[in-house]
């Protein structure tokens, strides 16, 4: 029914799709698998009309199509249910279902007709109990999912794309989701299903396409009969060679961080671990496994219960307190959470330790510039002019500046969330070396990355997270990518 051939999509600095083929038949559940960054989301957005491919063809029912906008895609009969549900919380269920194609005449919405039609669609989905006039913001995640699905159906979709639909659902709700999917496929609707949970794919899927580094590496595998090991090895074994610095040859020092029973309801529960001086501890897990949230909780930026002890002292649970105690965080979204894009490299580096450059609030700008210059040289930030606006630097150099921020003052623990996101391969190796050097100098490092090889290559010890709990803890040397992925996706502790 749908045939995509040689789809290429280039973004500045990264080739997100590099020749993807996909072939979906009517009435099947076609699963799309791949690691973070393999290009799944981009592929979906091409189908949804959000991105236009730079090359390649899309044929739908034997006719070539080119969804140039989300409206085009909907008219073609493609409906997309995104990972983060795109509903308007303040509107009613019926209004959300018919958003953009209201039952209207001369601009006036026929609310009674909309409610009737909404009820029909909801009943067809087996959820007649959801009132069309209820406010969407008050519904449970599962009910919201149903509303999203109802919206897709209201468009008379022939192809429904679901991006991790089960991520927000409890177990019994997943069963209901599968029932709805089966009814849809029985009516000839095709479903493209994305999930990281292999057991789901075995249950609901018909065929599997595997993406790796923006390319299709396997087409139309049987979802039920293909062995897990084959699927995992298709997803791994990447082409990009990472260059990691040698690991510490001496034993780590004293304990820097002790986390005990850290919990945040619905996000992660009972997480306990330690980080020692000079040690890099990696957290491996999927998006939504709680890895970034644990980092934020340790840093005091997110409320949680449990104890966080830094250097033998229980820390006050606020960022102001943890920074004073000697923690530093390089957050996941560099531009949104770490950088003052308008300001100079210097101002960005000294932001975390301004009191150290001031007497009675008066900034010693000469000292500031000297320190920034010293760090810029030490980390080899290029161009080596710390007075430049930081927005003119490349991603890798911006990231070095964020690291430099926490090399001022006496830091004991660095929390790094996706330190190499959006950083090109060459700069990655440099960042890895910088991070290893920091550890050599006796700083404890807690590292989160969605790229398993990065965690294994850089960390001394690894915690594997799945759905908010630690399912494995061990030396990085004793783990391989294959095994970790297996644990992350299947929930099996090795």
């Amino acid at each position, binding site marked *: 029914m749908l045939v995509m051939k040689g789809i290429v999509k280039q*973004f*500045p*600095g*990264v080739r*997100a799709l590099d020749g993807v083929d996909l072939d979906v038949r009517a009435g099947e559940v076609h699963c799309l698998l*791949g*690691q*973070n*960054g*393999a*290009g*799944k*989301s*981009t592929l979906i*957005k091409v189908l949804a009309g959000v*991105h236009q491919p730079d090359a390649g063809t899309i044929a739908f029912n034997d006719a070539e199509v080119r969804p140039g906008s989300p409206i085009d895609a909907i008219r073609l009969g493609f409906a997309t249910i995104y*990972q983060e549900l795109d509903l308007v919380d303040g509107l009613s269920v019926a209004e959300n279902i018919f958003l953009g194609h209201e039952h209207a005449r001369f601009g006036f919405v026929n609310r009674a007709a909309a409610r009737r039609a909404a009820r029909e669609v909801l009943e067809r989905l087996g959820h007649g109990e959801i009132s069309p006039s209820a406010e969407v913001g008050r519904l449970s995640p599962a009910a919201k999912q149903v509303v999203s699905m109802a919206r897709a159906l209201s468009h008379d979709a022939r192809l429904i794309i679901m991006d991790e639909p089960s991520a927000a659902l409890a177990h019994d709700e997943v069963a209901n989701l599968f029932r709805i999917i089966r009814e849809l496929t029985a009516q000839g609707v095709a479903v493209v299903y994305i999930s990281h949970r292999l057991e789901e794919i075995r249950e609901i899927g018909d065929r599997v396409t595997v993406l790796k580094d923006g390319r299709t590496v396997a087409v139309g595998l049987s979802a039920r009969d293909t062995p897990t090991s084959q699927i995992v090895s298709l997803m791994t074994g990447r082409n990009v060679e990472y260059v990691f610095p040698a690991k510490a040859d001496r034993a780590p020092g004293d304990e820097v961080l002790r986390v005990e029973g850290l919990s945040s309801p619905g996000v992660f529960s009972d997480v306990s671990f330690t980080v020692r001086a000079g040690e890099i501890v990696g957290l491996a897990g999927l*998006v939504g496994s709680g890895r970034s949230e644990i980092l934020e909780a340790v*840093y005091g*930026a997110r409320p949680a219960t449990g104890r966080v002890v830094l250097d033998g002292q229980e820390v006050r649970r606020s*960022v*102001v307190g*943890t*920074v*004073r105690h000697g923690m530093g*965080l390089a*957050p996941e*979204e560099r*531009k*949104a*959470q*770490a*950088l*003052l*894009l*308008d*300001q*100079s490299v*210097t*101002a960005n580096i000294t*932001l*975390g330790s*301004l*009191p150290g*450059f*001031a007497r009675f*609030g*008066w*900034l010693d*700008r000469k000292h500031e*510039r000297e320190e920034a210059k010293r760090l810029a040289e030490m980390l080899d930030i290029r161009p080596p002019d710390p*007075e430049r*606006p930081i*927005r*003119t630097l490349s991603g890798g150099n911006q990231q070095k500046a964020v690291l430099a*921020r926490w090399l001022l003052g006496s830091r004991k623990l660095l929390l790094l969330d996706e330190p190499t*996101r*959006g950083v090109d391969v060459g700069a990655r190796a440099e960042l890895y070396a910088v991070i290893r050097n920091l550890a050599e100098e006796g700083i404890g490092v807690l590292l989160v990355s*969605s790229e398993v090889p990065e965690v294994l290559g850089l960390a001394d010890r690894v915690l594997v997270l799945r759905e908010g709990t630690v399912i494995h803890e061990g030396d990085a040397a004793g783990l391989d990518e294959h095994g970790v992925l297996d644990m992350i996706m299947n929930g099996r502790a090795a």
Partner: protein
Amino acid sequence: MSEPTKAQTLSAAGGGGPSRRGIPGLGSLGGVGEMRHLGLLGALALLVVVGLVTRPENFATASNLVSILSLAATIGVITVGATFVIIGGGIDLSVGAVMALASVWATTVATQSYGPVTMAICAMLVGTGAGLVNGLLIAYGRLVPFIATLAMLVAARGLAQRMSDRKTQIIDADNTAVVELSTTRVLGIPLLVYIFALVVVLGWVVLNRTTFGRRTYAVGGNPEAARLAGIDVRRHTMLLYALSGLCCGIAAILIMARTTTGSSTHGDLYELDAIAAVIIGGTLLTGGRGTIMGSILGLLIFTLITNLFILNGLNTSDQLIAKGLIIVAAVLLQRRNLKERAP
């Protein structure tokens, strides 16, 4: 798995909005800001030429220049505070009303009985107190700045009316020291203009040479980054509004000196003039970028227009229309400048 697309959204967000570069006062980054100031200076020069051509006999006189500066002084002090608040990502609509309240409180019979120094301190305390209330509501009560300060605008004006019984309170003969700020001249310039200049200099120093100023840019430019860098964003936000209130208190002293009264009607619509001056001066309403000098130049442009209209005997309604056009023109020009400089 959404890495490339996320990066894309980010860069799209960065390029889609007004691209911001260069903070004057941060070393070599001053270039862009100086250029922007050049434009404002050019506009100011143009207005001076207009004044010289249309009213050669009384524009360039000492008395006219002094009256322009005296007129600018009161709103000027408020504009300094407003610049801090707006760079810090907020807005303060209550400045005119808080100034009126401070002027009334400082001129009650009871306050006046303690003498001129107490009156001045009273005005500053009332202003700071009102600003602190704004700050607490916004930073810790999580009210939107627009709403919190709108409420303060209405309530402060009401309280000022209640305290003064809607009467104009005249400064009595024992306290003429306050009025002398306006009548005493040093080098031919009234003292209140020196106070204005002092506030501007102090404002510039605090914004450009202290941790407080650096944090103001950080909190306004990227509050999440500021928070994650260990800055107490809420406390800083509160202090910004208190600072704005203090400026209103100082402005109240100046208006008391100029008019010899405290009144609940003082400072009507000053908030609009102050915000307009800040915007014309190139400070972004979204925060994170701006300069004191820009705001003061913007204010002088505004004051000069008022002066030219009065000198030429033109309609005040036309004056308002002209000011409206200037706000739009200034913002459009700045946006064009930004686009040209965008990477």
